[in-house]
């Protein structure tokens, strides 16, 4: 409180490009990591697997959202096909581990790689088309892949297009409850988060941003658009593939219904509400989008039972539609009120308190 910073002064290029502008930021980051590692402790004392599963879902969603944000937020290539890329990863992992007996980590990496390959394939049109046309092309990618996986029985395993997988085992530990699976997901989440943070401040990341801001200008100053656009698709799909594979191991089933068009749109909503072009934003968006329906459910059920005395069953139908309605309205309101999302709000809050009692 006494000792206040008077600004951030960089004296070398290295310090300007550093991941953490201030020592405090580094401490906060490690603090957060420690917090995440210790998170299951209180929950396991409460024996609350349900809460843990919510956290797991959020962490999984965050991996996919970070990937999408690299493509959409940093490179400016709109994709409505994140769900499809996750689907590719998920099925690849499921097929490898059930039919070929591969360990889970091979499945996850192969899922990411396969998805990256498919992503590059569908990214090729992005070299000629952009903006709205690209959005539609990725939409087609989503629909084509949903159809393919549903209709090619070799991939989908026939019945209901779902493949069951075993719990992954790490050093003889079977990941058979939410708390154990959490650590698997956490490792990948942290890797995803810090890899993305580092990627976007590197040469590659700067090329992405240049393409986003004005691709022709970027080309003129020597950014190889062909290479970097495809790279963005590859990286983003790799993230999606890893997230999809993790989903599969987490749910112990690969099913296309977890990766439909609605899911793709949900991921877009995450990064828009969280903040385009911000890794932290993607995580905040994932938290928000995943927690919001739960909170809404509890509120509506609370109101209907508490005030009107209606049982849950009577409102379940209404609730699903009401959720959809509020979800849509929320996206609209966010875009109009705070187009830069939660990440910007968080920045504003931080800025306010940085100088807090003497903010003038």
């Amino acid at each position, binding site marked *: 409180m006494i000792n206040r910073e008077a600004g951030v002064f960089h004296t070398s290029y290295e310090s300007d490009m550093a991941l953490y502008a201030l020592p405090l930021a580094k401490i906060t980051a490690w603090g957060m990591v420690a917090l995440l590692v210790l998170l299951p402790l209180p929950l396991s004392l409460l024996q609350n697997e349900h809460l843990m599963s919510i956290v797991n879902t959020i962490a999984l969603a965050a991996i996919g959202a970070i990937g999408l944000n690299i493509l959409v937020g940093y490179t400016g290539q709109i994709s409505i096909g994140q769900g499809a890329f996750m689907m590719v990863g998920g099925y690849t992992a499921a097929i490898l581990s059930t039919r070929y007996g591969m360990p889970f980590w091979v499945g996850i990496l192969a899922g990411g790689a396969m998805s990256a390959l498919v992503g590059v394939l569908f990214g090729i049109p992005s070299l000629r088309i952009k903006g709205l*046309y690209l959005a539609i092309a990725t939409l*087609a990618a989503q629909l084509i892949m949903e159809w393919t996986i549903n209709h090619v029985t070799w991939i989908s395993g026939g019945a209901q297009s779902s493949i069951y997988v075993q719990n992954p085992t790490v050093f003889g530990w079977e990941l058979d409850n939410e708390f154990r699976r959490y650590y698997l997901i956490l490792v990948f989440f942290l890797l995803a988060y810090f890899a993305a943070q580092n990627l976007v401040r590197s040469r590659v990341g700067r090329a992405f941003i240049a393409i986003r801001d004005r691709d022709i200008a970027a080309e003129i100053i020597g950014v190889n658009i062909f290479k970097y656009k495809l790279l963005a698709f590859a990286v983003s799909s790799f993230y999606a593939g890893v997230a999809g594979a993790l989903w599969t191991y987490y749910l112990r089933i690969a099913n296309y219904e977890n990766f439909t068009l609605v899911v793709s749109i949900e991921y877009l909503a995450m990064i828009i509400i969280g903040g385009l072009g911000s890794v932290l934003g993607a995580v905040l968006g994932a938290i928000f989008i995943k927690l919001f329906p739960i909170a809404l459910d509890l509120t509506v059920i609370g109101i209907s039972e508490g005030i009107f005395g209606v049982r849950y069953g009577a409102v379940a139908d209404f609730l699903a539609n009401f959720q959809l309605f509020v979800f849509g309205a929320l996206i609209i309101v966010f875009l109009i009120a705070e187009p830069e999302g939660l990440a910007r709000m968080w920045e504003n809050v931080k800025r306010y308190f940085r100088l807090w009692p003497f903010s003038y």
Partner: protein
Amino acid sequence: MEFFFDLVTNGLLVGLTYALVALGFVLIYKATSVINFAQGDLVMFAGYAAAVMLGMRGMPVWLMALVLAVGMVVLGFVIERGILRPLVGQPVIAVIMVTIGLSFVLQGLVAILWGASTRDLPLPVRMEPYILGPVFLSPINLVAAVIAIVFLIAFGLFFTRSRLGVAMRAVADDQQAAMVIGIKVPRVFALSWAIAGLAAAAGGVIWGNMLGVDTFLALVGLKVFPVVILGGLDSIAGAIIGGLILGAVESLAAGYLDPYVGGGTKDFIPYVLMILVLFVRPYGFFGHETIERV
């Protein structure tokens, strides 16, 4: 060969109704450069409203059509005013997302207001098909085609003959230049949404009658994308021809390929076609190829 003709004719008729839905989409894109992901949901909304109105006792069809048309025009205005106008100048992704948000709102709203169960939308049209030699024509398809043609001709005349139509084309061509010569651009934006609402009303009644009205009616909107990509996002003639091509291709694919792959090619072929077109001719057959400068 007879089978082929039957498929093509019916495909073309269905294609006309695709063109009708695509028309609203193209109009909005042409005038305001907004991709409207909620076009299918507007169609669904119109279908629901029509079904609900026809369900009321003693509501004649013409009155329903009138109320629906006026209502959808008003809805178009409201959407433009309330949602799209604050986003002028925002990046493409924000605009896309806001129409996606709108589509969720409409879906949720419709289900809350009128329930999610499938409703009939009975029109006074006979059910038995007309048989012309080898070709079976279902009357509703013919009616739909007639409505679509009337709409398309009316819009064609509107854009070439009326002052307002010319103003809309001017705005589509160059917003700044249009503003300079005194065209009220916001008014044109609102108008294009209103017309899109009207096109959705027609589409909603026709598709609602053919498929039955429930929230799945909105999936018609997904079919619009291949149509407009084929024809070019900003071409009205392209929307019509794209619709016809897509209708025919879809129908042929369903007729010839379905037996081999076990159905569902209808939902698959259009998108493959679209991706191929994007590779070869990214701006469609009639689309305006933009030349970019730094």
